[in-house]
């Protein structure tokens, strides 16, 4: 690590002198460095723990999981070369790939992988696996589950289960150094924002074309826009959609976009009197001008959501499912029918309850606040009063815990692991789920369907179950998708061969070359 612990007056003066010198020379010296692939995204390297920052390790291809997913959704071997499941569907065997070495040169054995995986299984994201035991047999890792769990390989794509070398952990049980197996190896970490990487020459698979890479975290969206306009990075993930025309016009970088299974959705507390009636939820759903929001705010008309998930995940997208029309009159009629009467202030009420709600949104996704204010204006037309309150992300679980949640709007990815069911279960089958339904009676029906789905290894049956789950969600609207997510990536002119992974598990940097 290159952490500067102190600066002397002289070094500061030298710095200022060099600053002045740099100002005097209108050169491009700060810009492109030959052979270094510069990647930026909003996320900071807050700690070394895979549960915390494993996604950066996985995306930057520093660390790898047993199972990996290709951009087309196909599960492929990662550290595990192959896997099998026993006939009773309870014992899974993962064969560790031969010749894989950690960044410190030590070989990846089944024992080492199991040790790393055991730590991951303690984390919350892996706890959905009904683990019975984890052991090794030679070069094979044996995982037994208590009940059949059909999408286990998909869950093992989760970044929290990246495999680190035993030497990574310090005496205190925390990761002191990240020693992993990916095609890139960390050479230095500068604070939370910059990570220097180099090609790992003993990587088992396709070796990167660039010798060095640098990851920079730029949390502020406007700053990312500025950097993109200046062309001061090679690839910038998650640029502000509204800024796309400016970035493209500047000519340094081009914004590529891809619809991904991340959804901007609003969720209701269905236990509240104003949202208990499904007709109210439907009316709200019909009063929202999704296309207007998608084109004006998100600048991508195609991102208006017609159902929970986009066609980018064909298995979980049912083209036959009828979408809700944008129909203010129809929405008003529904509310009239449900007995909500307009008061003198234009807000409907029923039995002394006003059709009003406070909607929590996440401040660090600024477009949600803008969408919220748009919805606020649109819902006025059906006599609903909406207050938008952007806050830190933790405010939503906090409000749910405190029982004060009325409505939320958030962005949720359904492919944390490349099987949507892993997200449907926590979001739609619990009484109080953080990013899904709250006090929704329909959860039990979904639960029955998901239980069967998890244990089933019959693809046809699973497809039927998926359609049923999607239909219930579409009909009952405990959660309403407003817009799908356009993954925006600004790409420098000199970058060749970039592939965007809709699952956001890897940045596929090994395929990139610099022109």
């Amino acid at each position, binding site marked *: 690590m290159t*952490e*500067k*612990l*102190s*600066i002397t*007056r002289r070094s*500061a003066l030298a*710095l*200022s*002198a*060099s*600053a*002045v*010198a*740099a*100002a005097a020379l*209108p050169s*491009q*010296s*700060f810009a492109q460095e030959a052979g270094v692939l510069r990647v930026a995204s909003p996320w*900071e390297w*807050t*700690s*070394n*723990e895979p*549960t*915390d920052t494993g*996604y950066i390790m996985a995306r930057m291809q520093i660390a790898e999981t047993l199972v990996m997913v290709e951009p087309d959704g196909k599960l492929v071997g990662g550290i595990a070369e192959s896997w099998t499941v026993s006939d009773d569907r309870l014992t899974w065997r993962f064969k560790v790939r031969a010749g894989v070495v950690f960044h410190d040169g030590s070989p990846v054995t089944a024992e080492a992988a199991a040790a790393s995986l055991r730590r991951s299984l303690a984390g*919350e*994201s892996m*706890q959905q696996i009904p683990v019975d035991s984890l052991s090794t047999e030679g070069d094979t890792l044996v995982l037994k589950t208590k009940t059949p769990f059909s999408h286990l390989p998909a869950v093992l794509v989760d970044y929290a289960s990246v495999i680190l070398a035993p030497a990574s952990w310090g005496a205190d049980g*925390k990761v002191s150094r990240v020693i992993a197996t990916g095609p890139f190896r960390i050479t230095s970490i*500068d*604070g*939370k*924002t910059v990570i220097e990487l180099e090609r790992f020459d003993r990587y088992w698979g396709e070796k990167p074309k660039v010798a060095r890479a640098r990851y*920079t*975290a730029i*949390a*502020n969206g406007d*700053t990312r826009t*500025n*950097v993109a*306009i*200046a062309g*001061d990075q090679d690839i910038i993930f998650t640029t502000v959609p509204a800024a796309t025309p400016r970035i493209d016009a*500047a000519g340094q970088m081009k914004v590529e976009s891809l619809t991904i299974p991340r959804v901007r959705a609003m969720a209701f507390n269905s236990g509240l009197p104003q949202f208990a009636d499904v007709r109210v939820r439907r009316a709200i759903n019909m009063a929202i001008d999704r296309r207007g929001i998608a084109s004006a705010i998100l600048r991508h008309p195609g991102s208006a959501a017609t159902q929970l998930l986009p066609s980018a995940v064909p298995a979980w997208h049912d083209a036959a499912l009828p979408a809700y029309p944008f129909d203010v009159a129809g929405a008003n009629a529904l509310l009239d029918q449900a007995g909500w009467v307009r008061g003198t202030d234009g807000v409907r009420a029923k039995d002394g309850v006003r059709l009003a709600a406070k909607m929590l949104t*996440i401040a660090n996704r600024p477009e949600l606040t803008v969408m919220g204010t748009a919805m606020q204006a649109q819902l006025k037309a059906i006599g609903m009063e909406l207050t938008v309150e952007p806050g*830190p*992300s*933790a*405010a939503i*679980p*906090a409000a749910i*815990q405190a029982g004060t949640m009325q409505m939320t709007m*958030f962005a*949720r990815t359904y492919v*944390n692991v490349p099987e949507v069911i892993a997200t449907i279960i*926590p979001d739609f089958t619990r009484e109080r789920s*953080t990013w899904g339904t709250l006090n929704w009676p329909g959860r039990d029906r979904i639960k029955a369907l998901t239980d069967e789905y998890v244990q089933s290894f019959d693809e046809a049956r699973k497809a039927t179950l998926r359609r049923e789950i999607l239909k219930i969600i579409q009909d009952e609207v405990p959660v309403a998708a407003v817009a799908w997510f356009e993954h925006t990536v600004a790409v420098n002119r000199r970058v060749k061969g970039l592939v965007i992974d809709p699952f956001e598990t890897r940045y596929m940097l090994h395929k990139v070359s610099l022109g």
Partner: protein
Amino acid sequence: MNTVLRVIMLRIGQALATAAVLASLCFVFVHALPGDLALRVAAARVGDERVTPETADRIRREEGLDRPLIVQYGQWMGNLAQGDLGRSLLSGKPVKQELAYHASFTLQLGLIGWLLSYLIALPLGIMAGFRPGGVVDRITDALAVTLASLPSFLVGIGLITLFALTLRWLPPAGFRTGAHMVLPAFTLALSLVAFSIPVIRNAVVEVRSAFFMTYARVKGLTPAAAFRHHGVRNAAIPVVTYAALQFAFVIDGFVVIETLFNYPGLGELLVKALIARDVPVIMGAGLVIGFAFAVVSLLADLTRLWLDPRGLEEARA
């Protein structure tokens, strides 16, 4: 010089006490904030989407956040007595290391911006002060008032738009090379200059109108010699006082500039620590900033004592 030493000892004692009180206040404030602290820590650690009540419970257990507040506070104070500021709840790194890293950046940018501001303000202020009401005075006054009326984020956006996006002379964000420092340093310098120019100008005007300056000329010194021998030192007294105040202002970081330029300073650290409710970091920052503030004002006092012997007399009393 015994007096000076006594003043220093006294002030350092005061500074330590102030810092400890500040850190304690931070503790009280952070715990008084509504919401589940462990949940906030959890959200910051595992990310917005993964946070669950279970994660919060695990972190509460692991970090001992379920202990009574008085015990947590007592432990922090106990560790502090041994020079240990604890570990960040977010990164798990020692708070000392986190603070040192971010403080070094704040100090770098702060010092450069601050020096730059005086590099700009001193000649302008002195020129204006030499000819009150003259052309230079009017121009610098207009400049100072204009800059004082522009929020630093607007200045920053303006500079970025011009120099980074349009002219492409400088990088728009970052912190690793000298070129990266230019725009944030100028943004900071311009917001400081707005207030230091009038201070310098007034100090010069005041000293130049002081009778001892006239008398020095009656005694036979040329105007330049009179200013060199008598003016500089006397004019420096208010300027030094103000400059130290400005520098003290700079040490607790400048969130807007740091955010705009993606610069890893203390301000950024504090904002993130606050979002994450990273209590040890917030308390540590309170402690360090409070102490630094006191040290800077002590240095200013010492400089003033050196410049102005009258202060020594007051200190003695």
